[in-house]
């Protein structure tokens, strides 16, 4: 059974973002969930499904059930899903399946944590190092930025990507964040700022790396039938696909080709659409190299041309393909699994319209791509304002 047109997103919400020492990670999720329910025009009693991801600052066993308990929900469909940064789009996939099969009617999907103030920067970096293989990567000091740096370095070597073009991804993200009232970092930056920022793992500097924020995000999935009498404009799930190729970098078949090709192909096939039909894209941008690779794998430009695509300004609000119109994880927010979830929130908002300066003109179809691990788990979703 194709999921096309079988599920809609009816409410989206994001918590306060930045440094929120007065809030817990669960509290940030609750704040975002409350805003999403209000946005949808739903009652709390309408929620009968709950999906969440994981938390480093509050690493509860059974986080999904803990979240339900915290929110006072007793859902009949509930889980915590862990496919790293790909979790939000994968949760959208699972929520849509549950709704389409009648397992439940209305699923709250939420994620996020207080990663900026709930743990020290050193603790956050150390916790993330656990993503590397415990025996065959971690002993070598393979931090997550360093593992992505290996991909960036090889890409630059093979395709002649300039350091400035790589930096342009961060510059564009910051420009878009400046148009978003709730973005964590809004002060404009230049390519020179990126190049001169604190070196982390060559070629990546601090400004090539995503933020560490306190942030929560939420969206609500239900059936098109249920959405009919709600006050909000529903965004239809038109296509979705996943591909999980490896977890650890040393087991990746290639350092220049990843699973976004397959997840994208599946999503396009379900939607009956192609890259040229997309009015905007919210790509996963944990590091500047990543959206460059995703642009290429998702068919928006040829391999090796993603950097030039960014550097030429084609990803701006009025460009050929606006990308990460909220500022992405590089400038809007990143905390645990919430980074990619904010891409879904922003895609829905763009499709509804009315975002002022940040609004992409005539946005009717949006692509969202989430990836987790070291370009390991991929999920691509296509959303639209009209069923197809």
């Amino acid at each position, binding site marked *: 059974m194709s999921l096309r047109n079988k599920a809609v997103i009816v409410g989206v919400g994001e918590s306060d973002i930045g440094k929120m020492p007065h809030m817990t990670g669960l509290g940030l999720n609750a704040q975002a969930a409350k805003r999403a329910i209000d946005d949808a025009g739903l009652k709390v009693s309408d929620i009968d499904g709950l999906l969440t991801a994981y938390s480093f600052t509050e690493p509860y066993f059974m986080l999904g059930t803990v979240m339900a308990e915290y929110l006072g929900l007793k859902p009949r469909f509930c889980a915590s899903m862990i496919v790293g940064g790909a979790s939000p789009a994968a949760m959208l996939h699972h929520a849509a399946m549950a709704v389409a099969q009648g397992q439940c009617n209305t699923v709250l999907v939420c994620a996020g944590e207080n990663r900026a103030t709930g743990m020290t920067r050193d603790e956050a970096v*150390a916790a993330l190092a656990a993503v590397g293989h415990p025996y065959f990567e971690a*002993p*070598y000091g393979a931090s997550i930025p360093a*593992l992505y*740096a*290996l991909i960036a370095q090889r890409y630059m070597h093979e395709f002649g990507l300039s350091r400035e073009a790589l930096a342009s991804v961060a510059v564009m993200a910051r420009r878009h964040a400046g148009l978003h009232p709730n973005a964590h970092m809004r002060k404009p930056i230049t390519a020179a700022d990126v190049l001169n920022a*604190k070196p982390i*793992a*060559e070629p990546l500097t601090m400004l090539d790396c995503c933020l560490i924020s306190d942030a929560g995000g939420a969206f609500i999935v239900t059936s098109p039938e249920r959405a009919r009498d709600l006050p909000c404009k529903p965004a239809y799930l038109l296509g979705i696909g996943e591909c999980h190729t490896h977890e650890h970098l040393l087991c990746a078949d290639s*350092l220049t080709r990843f699973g976004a090709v397959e997840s994208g192909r599946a999503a396009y096939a379900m939607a009956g659409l192609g890259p040229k039909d997309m009015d905007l894209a919210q790509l996963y941008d944990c590091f500047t190299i990543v959206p460059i690779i995703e642009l290429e794998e998702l068919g928006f430009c040829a391999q090796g041309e993603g950097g030039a695509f960014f550097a030429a300004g084609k990803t701006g609000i009025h460009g050929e393909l606006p990308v990460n119109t909220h500022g992405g994880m590089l400038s809007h927010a990143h905390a645990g699994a919430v980074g990619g979830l904010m891409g879904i929130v922003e895609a829905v908002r763009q499709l509804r319209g009315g975002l002022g300066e940040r609004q992409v003109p005539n946005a009717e179809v949006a692509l969202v791509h989430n990836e987790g691990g070291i370009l390991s788990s991929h999920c691509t979703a296509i959303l639209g304002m009209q069923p197809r």
Partner: protein
Amino acid sequence: MTTIPKFAAGNADSKPYWEAAQQGRLVFKKCLACGQIQFPPRHLCPKCWSDRSEWVTSAGTGRVYSYSIVRRAPSPAHAGKVPYVLAVVDLDDAPRMVTNIVGEDALGVKIGDAVKVVFEACDGGAIPQFQRALK
């Protein structure tokens, strides 16, 4: 000092790897059914699922496929080592490894450099590392 996690050295899948490293040998598990050399070592071959395998010794030579000079350490254990080189090395006779490039000229590493395995004594035994081969 580099530390091999205690659970790694005692891990049933990889124990022979660490024991060989202590004897100065780099070993990999080779599938007796399809010939695939697997890394990390597993109970069965990830290509054909045969559970018959043998350990083979690698010449330990290869080339740098990619590298990064790490300026910010992920843990206090590595803080004293910065800047250090994290690299992906393609071995001539075995799969790809993530490793450090060590030695006095390590920071001058380039993609394509020939490298050879060396064994660094560390807390918990010895760990394979790579050095740039002399020109």
